[in-house]
C-alpha cells in the first residue's frame, strides 16, 4: 500500500482545491501565503534567504518578498532566537529557522528563558508571536546532531507550544495556523518526510482552528481507526505506525493510529477517547526513552483510562544512547519489528 494513501486524512473529496504536494512544497507554500497576508511576518536564519534553506523550505521566498522579509543571518543560533525576541517586541511576527534540530541547543537559553517567558514577565504586554521552525528527527543518514528529537525538552517548557505535522496537508495547515498565533510555537518538521507527496486541500480554512477537511487544527488526529489497540505517534513515526497497522491487519489485529500533532498542549481527551475504545496503547517516538514525551503520553492515557486499560502502556522509542551514525540508525529508530513486539507485549499481557 502506498505511503501517500496511507497518510491521507480520511475521505478527502477530489475537490478543486486539492493538490498533490510534498511536505517541502506544502511548507513553502504556507510560508509564502503567510508572508503575503501579514506584512509584519519576517523569515530568517542560516541560509534561509538566497539559498532557500538547506531543505529548500524557504525556496524562492526572498526573491518574491524581498530581502527585508526573508534574510540570511550570521551563523549563531542564540543570535537568531535572541533577535527574534526583539523583533517580536517591535511588533513583528518572526519565523526563524534553526537549520537542524541539534543546533537548537545553542539557542535553548533564549528559547527557554526569553521567548517562553517574555509574555509572562511583561504581564502580557510583550507577546512573543514567534514561530520557530526546526527540521527535526532522524532517518536521513545525516552527520552527528542532525537527527535529534527535542520534543520532550520543548514540551516541558512553560510558555511554549509545540506541534509536529506528519503529512503535507497538515504541514500546510498547521504551519499557517502556528504562524498566525500570538504565542511562541515550536514547529517540528519531520525532515525524513519532506519529499513524500500527499494530497493537500488548499481551500482556506473556514475558521481559525478548522482545516478545510473539517478536522480541528488544535488537537490530535485519528490517522486510522481501529478497535484493538491504539498506536500514538507524531512526525515521521506516524507513517511508520500506519505501515505497522497494515501489517497487523493481515493478522486480524485492527489498530488505531493517533497522530498526536500537538506535543504541547497534548490532546489528552483524544488519547482517552481512543484508548477508552481500544483499551490498549503503545506510544512510539524517536527520542530516547527516559524522560521522553512517551512517558507523558503514557501517563495521560493511564490517568484517563485506568479502569479499562488491559495492559500497561508500552513505549517503543529510541534508546537511551546518543543518536548513532547512519549505519546504526535503523537499529536506533523504532522499526517495524520493534513496534510489532511492543504491540505483542500489550496484546499478550495477562494480569498476575
Amino acid at each position, binding site marked *: 500500500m502506498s505511503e501517500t494513501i496511507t497518510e491521507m486524512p480520511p475521505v478527502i473529496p477530489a475537490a478543486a482545491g486539492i493538490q498533490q504536494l510534498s511536505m517541502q512544497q506544502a511548507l513553502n507554500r504556507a510560508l509564502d501565503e503567510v508572508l503575503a497576508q501579514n506584512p509584519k511576518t519576517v523569515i530568517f536564519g542560516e541560509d534561509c534567504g538566497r539559498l532557500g534553506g538547506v531543505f529548500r523550505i524557504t525556496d524562492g521566498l526572498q526573491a518574491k518578498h524581498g530581502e527585508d522579509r526573508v534574510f540570511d543571518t550570521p551563523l*549563531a543560533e*542564540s*543570535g537568531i532566537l535572541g533577535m527574534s525576541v526583539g*523583533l517580536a517586541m*517591535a*511588533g513583528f511576527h518572526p519565523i526563524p529557522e534553526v537549520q537542524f534540530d541539534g543546533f537548537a541547543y545553542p539557542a535553548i537559553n533564549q528559547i527557554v528563558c526569553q521567548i517562553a517567558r517574555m509574555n*509572562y514577565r511583561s*504581564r502580557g504586554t510583550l507577546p512573543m508571536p514567534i514561530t520557530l521552525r526546526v527540521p527535526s528527527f532522524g532517518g536521513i543518514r545525516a552527520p552527528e546532531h542532525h537527527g535529534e528529537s527535542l520534543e520532550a525538552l520543548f514540551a516541558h517548557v512553560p510558555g511554549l507550544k509545540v506541534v509536529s505535522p506528519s503529512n503535507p496537508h497538515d504541514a500546510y495547515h498547521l504551519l499557517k495556523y502556528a504562524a498566525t498565533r500570538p504565542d511562541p510555537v515550536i514547529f517540528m518538521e519531520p525532515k525524513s518526510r519532506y519529499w513524500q507527496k500527499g494530497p493537500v486541500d488548499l481551500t482556506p480554512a473556514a475558521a481559525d482552528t478548522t482545516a478545510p477537511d473539517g478536522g480541528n487544527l488544535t488537537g490530535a488526529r485519528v490517522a486510522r481507526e481501529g478497535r484493538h489497540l491504539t498506536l500514538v505517534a507524531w512526525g515521521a513515526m506516524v507513517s511508520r505506525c500506519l505501515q505497522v497497522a497494515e501489517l497487523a491487519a493481515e493478522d486480524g489485529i485492527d489498530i488505531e493510529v493517533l497522530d498526536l500533532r500537538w506535543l504541547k498542549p497534548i490532546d489528552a481527551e483524544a488519547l482517552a477517547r481512543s484508548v477508552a475504545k481500544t483499551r490498549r496503547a503503545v506510544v512510539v517516538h524517536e527520542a530516547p526513552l527516559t524522560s521522553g514525551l512517551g512517558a507523558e503520553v503514557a501517563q495521560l492515557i493511564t490517568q484517563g483510562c485506568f479502569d479499562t486499560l488491559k495492559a500497561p502502556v508500552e513505549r517503543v522509542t529510541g534508546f537511551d544512547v546518543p543518536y548513532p551514525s547512519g549505519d546504526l540508525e535503523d537499529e536506533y529508530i523504532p522499526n517495524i519489528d520493534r513496534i510489532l513486539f511492543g504491540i505483542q507485549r500489550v496484546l499478550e499481557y495477562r494480569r498476575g
Partner: protein
Amino acid sequence: MTTKPALAAVDDDAAPLSNQQLRELYTLMAAVRHLDTSAVAWQRQGIIPGYAPELGQEAAQVGSGYAVDRSRDFVFPTYREMGVARAMGLDMVGYMSTHKATWHGGMYNPVESRFAPIQAVVAGSVLHAVGWAHGQTLAAPDEGTGVAMTYFGDGASSQGDVHEAMNFAAVMKAPVVFFIQNNGWAISVPTERQVAGGSVAARAAGYGIPALQVDGNDVVAVYEATRSAFAHCRNGNGPVVIEAMTYRRGPHSTADDPGRYRTLEEERLDAGEDPLERFKQRLLADGVADEAFFADAQRKAEEEAEVIRMGIQDLGPRPGAEMFNLVFQEPTPALQSQATAWREESEHV
C-alpha cells in the same frame, strides 16, 4: 580617561546642556542616590527581600537614561538599572516591585515606559536590543529611527550572546547603543580577571563598530557620549559601543559580602570620587546651583523615596491566578484545568 569622538554623526550641533538641564540631572542623581540607599535599608528592615544597589553608578545611569527619546527609543536594562529607570520617568513602585518579589519583570508597563522588563539573565537581553533595532530599520529605514540601548556589565561582556549581538548589529547596521557599565566587578571577580585585554570598548573595533570609552562618573560626559551615539545610530550609521568606567561602591546585592574579596582600603582607592559629590562641586563652582538647591533636591528625594516606600509596602501579593493567565495570549485547556485545580486546592474555593 577621555571620550574619543569616533562617530560618523556626533551631534555636534546639539546645544550644550542648559543650566536648567544640569540641575535636573543633579536632581535625578540625588533622587536615585537616596532611593538606592533607602532600598538597602528597606531590605535590612524586611520590607523587601533583596536588592541590587547601584551606588556609585548614578552618573552612568542617569546620564545615559537622560539621553533617551521616549517617543521612539527603547531601553533594555539588567537588574541594576534603577537609575536609568528613574531618569526615564518610570513608575518607581512598579520598578521596585521586582525587589519586593511581587513580579519578576516588575509591575511597570514596559511598552509605555520604553523600558523592557527587568532582566535577570546576565547579557540576556542584549540580542533583544539588536532585534528590536533591526525592526526599526525594517519599519522605517529612512526616517530618524528609534534606537535601542542595551545595558550590561563588565561581567556580562564575557557571555557569547554579547559577541553574537555585536556581530549581528554590525552586519545589519542596526541602530543599537551597547552601553556597558564597567563597574570593576562581577560579584567577586574584578575586571582584570574577567575582560581579557582590559576594555570592553576595545572589542568594538573588531566588528567595525565605533566605541566611546567615557568617564562613567561624570554625568555630563556620559550624557554627551550617549547623545552622540544616539545621533550616530539614528542617522543610519549602525551600532555604537559605549563603555562607562565606573565603580560598584556597594555589595553586588544585599546578599553579598564584599569583605570576602576586597578590602575597604581597596574600595576607597579604586572607587575614585563620588559621582554625586563631584557633580555637586562642579555645579557649585560653575555657579549653576547653590546649597539651597542641593538641600531642596535632597528633600525632594527623601519625600519621593517615602512615597515609594509606602507604595511598596502597600503592594499585596499578586493573585495566584496570574500565574496561569499571563503565560499565553491564547490560554490552553490544559493550563486552564491546572488553574482550576490550583484554585480548588490552594484557595479552597
